[in-house]
C-alpha cells in the first residue's frame, strides 16, 4: 500500500512539474522573449509590470463572468465619423495618420505619401529576405513570419 501511495505521490509531482513548465514557458515566450527566438524583448520590464497590475486587478477576473452576448451601447457609424471628423489627425509616420475619441478611433494610411526603406529580414525558416517598411518604424521581430 505504501509503495502504491509513493508512486501516486511521484506521479503527482511529475504532473505538477509538467504543468508548471508549460505555463512558465508560455509566459516566457509571450512576455520575455521575442517571436519564438532567444532574443529578449527590450520592453520586458514594462510588460511584466503591466501583466502584474492586470493580475492584481479584480476587474480582470470579473470580466470573465460578464455577459458578452449583450451588445455594448455604441454610436452609429455615421455619427462616429462626424465626431471623428472634428478631431485633428496626428501623424504617426509620414503617410500614416491616426485620431481617436472615447467612442472610437480611425487610422488613415496614405500609401503614396509613405517613404519606404528596404531592410533585410530573417524569416521563420532562416532565409533572409529584403522587405520594405515605412521609414521611422522598426521591422517586425525576426522569425515571426
Amino acid at each position, binding site marked *: 500500500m505504501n509503495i502504491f501511495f509513493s508512486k501516486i505521490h511521484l506521479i503527482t509531482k*511529475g504532473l505538477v512539474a509538467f504543468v508548471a513548465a508549460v505555463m*512558465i*514557458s508560455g509566459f516566457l515566450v509571450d512576455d520575455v522573449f521575442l517571436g519564438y*527566438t532567444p532574443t529578449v524583448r527590450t520592453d520586458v520590464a514594462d510588460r511584466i509590470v503591466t501583466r502584474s497590475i492586470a493580475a492584481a486587478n479584480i476587474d480582470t477576473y470579473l470580466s470573465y463572468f460578464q455577459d458578452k452576448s449583450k451588445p455594448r451601447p455604441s454610436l452609429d457609424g455615421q455619427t462616429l465619423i462626424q465626431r471623428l471628423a472634428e478631431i485633428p489627425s496626428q501623424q504617426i509616420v509620414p503617410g500614416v495618420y491616426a485620431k481617436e475619441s472615447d467612442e472610437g478611433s480611425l487610422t488613415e494610411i496614405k500609401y503614396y505619401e509613405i517613404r519606404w526603406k528596404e531592410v533585410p529580414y530573417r524569416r521563420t525558416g532562416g532565409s533572409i529576405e529584403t522587405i520594405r517598411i515605412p521609414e521611422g518604424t522598426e521591422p517586425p521581430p525576426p522569425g515571426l513570419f
Partner: protein
Amino acid sequence: MDSQTDLSGQILQQWTATTAHFSLTKKEIFLLAAALVLIVLLVGQVPVPYFNVSHILLLTLFTFLGKGFFPATKDTPLYFALISGVLMTLYYPIFQVLLIYFLLIGFMKVLKVL
C-alpha cells in the same frame, strides 16, 4: 622485462579501476540506438511524418547530457520528459519545446522526481 610487465600491469589495473563503474543500461542502449537511427534519417534526408528529425535528435542529445550530468538520475522521469518534449514538437515551436524541456527537468530535480 619485469619492470615493463609491472608498468603495463599497473596501467591496466588503473584503467580497469577508472572504467569499472561505467556501464550502459538497456534503456540507454535503446536511446543510443534511437539516436543513431535519427542520425541516419537526418543524413539520408528521410522525411518522418509530422516530426522534424533534427528537433527530435536535439532532444535526444540533451537527454544524453542529462544522463551524464545527473549521476543518480532515475530513468523513467527523464524519458517521460523526452517523450513529452517530442510530442510537444507537434504543437509548439522548437524554442518553446526546449524551454518546456529544461524547465521540466529543473522542476523534476527540485521536486526530487529525478
